[in-house]
């Protein structure tokens, strides 16, 4: 099939894109999307490796990761919703209650 190296490379690129996005974007929803991107990149890597070595562990990890990602997004969106309710903004720069 496809050379697993290419899939790993794709996963790596996707991960870096997600990481860079998480660092540099202001919009909370966008940061959440980037985190999702990172998670999916890791899932891709898991699947590729599982396929390559024929080990079912990788598939299991991938399914767990999807489930956890779903939960995490739900909580994240809930937090951003209440943040918007409190501060009328979802810009990460403006909400700095934990300062000092």
């Amino acid at each position, binding site marked *: 099939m496809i050379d697993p190296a290419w899939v790993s490379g794709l996963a790596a690129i996707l991960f870096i894109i997600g990481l860079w996005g998480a*660092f*540099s974007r*202001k919009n909370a929803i966008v*940061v959440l999307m980037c985190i999702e991107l990172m998670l999916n990149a890791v899932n891709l890597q898991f699947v590729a490796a599982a396929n390559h070595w024929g080990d079912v562990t990788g598939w299991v990890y991938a399914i767990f990761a999807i489930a956890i990602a779903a939960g995490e997004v739900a909580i994240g969106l809930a937090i951003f919703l209440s943040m918007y309710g409190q501060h009328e903004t979802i810009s*990460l720069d403006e909400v*700095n*209650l*934990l*300062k*000092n």
Partner: protein
Amino acid sequence: MSESAIIDYAVLIPLLPMLAFPVILFLGKLFNGTPTWVKNAKEGGIIALTVMGASLVLTLLVIKEHMNHVGSANIFTWFESSWWNAETGAITTKVFGVGIHIDHLTVMLLFVAAFLCFMINIFSIGYMNTDSINDNRNHRFYAEFVLFCSGMLGMVLADSFLWLFIFWELMGLCSYLLIGFYWERPSASYAAKKAFLTTRVGDVFLIIGLVMLWNLFDGHLDYAYVFDKANIAAVDSGDLQLALGMMFIGAVGKSAQFPLHVWLPDAMEGPTPVSALIHAATMVNAGLYLVARMFPFFSGAELGSLSTLAIIIACIGGITAVMAALIAFVQMDLKKVLAYSTMSQLAYIFTGLGSALWFANNGYEELAAFAMGASLFHLFNHAMAKGMLFMASGSVIHEMHHAHHDIAHHGDDDHEHDDDNFDAQSMENMGGLASRMPIAATAMFFGSMSIIGIPLIGGFWSKEGIISSAWQVALKEPIFLLPAMLILIGAGMTGFYMSRMWLMTFAGKPKTEVAKNVHEQTAWIPIPLVILTFMTLSAFILAGMHAGNWLGNFETGHYSSFLGGVGSELKHVFLNDDPFLLVLTYIAIGLSLILGPSFAMALYGGSLDKGQKAKPWMQWAINLSDKVNSSSKFDNSAWANSSLAEALHKRLYFDDLYDAAMLKIVVGFANISAIFDTKVIDGVIKTIETTSQEASRRVRSLTTGSARDYIMMAALGTLVIFMLLWGVA
């Protein structure tokens, strides 16, 4: 009664008054102001009198039993503690016990204390309860009074130096309380504090001396062990001298000798019975008692090893004698003259004791016994006479107050305190009272003569003994010339200032209206005065009974019968075999009988005013003083205005010096230390606190609150962990 029986009851002598203390306080608080309490119980005075009477009776019984043999009894073990020997690992138990020891010294002081406590108690009932300033607080006076008495009685009965010290401190406490009896007056409160602190300084040295003694004598302070000749011989005499020297400093403080004498004149702030009891008759004798107790050390230690201490004791005595006499020259306050007189006479006794101790340490047993006997006999005479003098002066002041009251306020009882500044204690306001107050005048007349040492009366018998002893030491030890000379001069000085006191108060014309209207009217007061007058006059009976001899010799002193003794005493005094002593005696007599009083008469003598006549035994003296005064041309104004007189008025600046030292140096240092403690020592802590707060603030600034920064930190952190886990290439 068998011996063990009476000595078993001896513990009651100090115990009864001590138990009466809370009783009087409690009852006084309960019944304060009620008529029965005030009139019948005299606000506790009767309770005190009963207790003191019981103690006196017990004392007499004890004395009767122990006139010529030592007695001791152990009461109980106070506590035990252990000593560890580092080399051998042995642990020995040291016992601190409570017990009673009775010998000649105890007997004499016990009698003085119990008798005078009783007499002064009678006096107080008359004095305190008739002065409205004391209303409703006399119970406090009587309670503190009996506590003090128990302290004194306990001290002389104690069988160890430890308990001597404990009762010593108890007396110090009562002295503080009683001097500060009129606590609302700043001067009284100040005087009480001064007394306590000055004696406390002495007590510090006393306690150090006791600690040294305890360690020298293998953990013992009880007389039975410590006076044993074998034990004394086993101790290093240099160390022993140091220990005894420390203890002597304590005695200096308590007996108001130079340089710890500053508290005694101020202590006159207390009511007169307090002055009589504590500062004349008993507490100040505590120091003397302590030094007298040291006698076995001196006789048992190595020959000549403790001489330095004996010389120091005598020198302090000599210096104080003259210094106090000088200051007494310029005093106008009646009680202050007596205070300085006390200081001076106690100094005499110290000199006598110093001579006795020197003799004892240098092997002259008989001379030591003689000197000791003379000193202790003088203690007895002085206590009796001085107590009486203070009581009489109290009577005078009391009546002056009353007279002033009558005149200034026309007998209006509502005024508690006199608004005008009439000083009822100043001799400048007195004069001519010999006819108006015969009992007080007589008492003071004979009391003064006893103190001066007029032949055949009271103190004479003992004073000449002291002077001759001192000079006999001086013959052997040249340094002793200093105290010997000083006390000889002091004899004349005593003659002067005591006569001055008596003449200013009782002879001449009354200097104020108040003095004209004085008359003796208070009940209770004359009783002790009369009794003590007889005691003073009958001192020659005791002298005749060789009391001195008996007092001086602990082991084998004996007393002879009256008639036989008197003759030999008289001969011994006036017709002594030794020419040196003979000359000395007559010089002393000349100074004290003729020189001193003559100057006093020249300056202050004078007949009574018209129509007044004193009792015959005094009238001749008044007449004589009048003659001397009118015929003398002695003018002392040059002396009176000199800088010496000014210094004397300021008590030779010692008080000012001590006050300044305390305030500027000690308190100043304390204030600086307090600031140092808060700023510097605590400052270190505060610096730690501020530094850590600052550091925390800085680190906290890393938390920017921005989510993006946190994501960055998380990612970086994860990266670092991965690098560490898999090793950085």
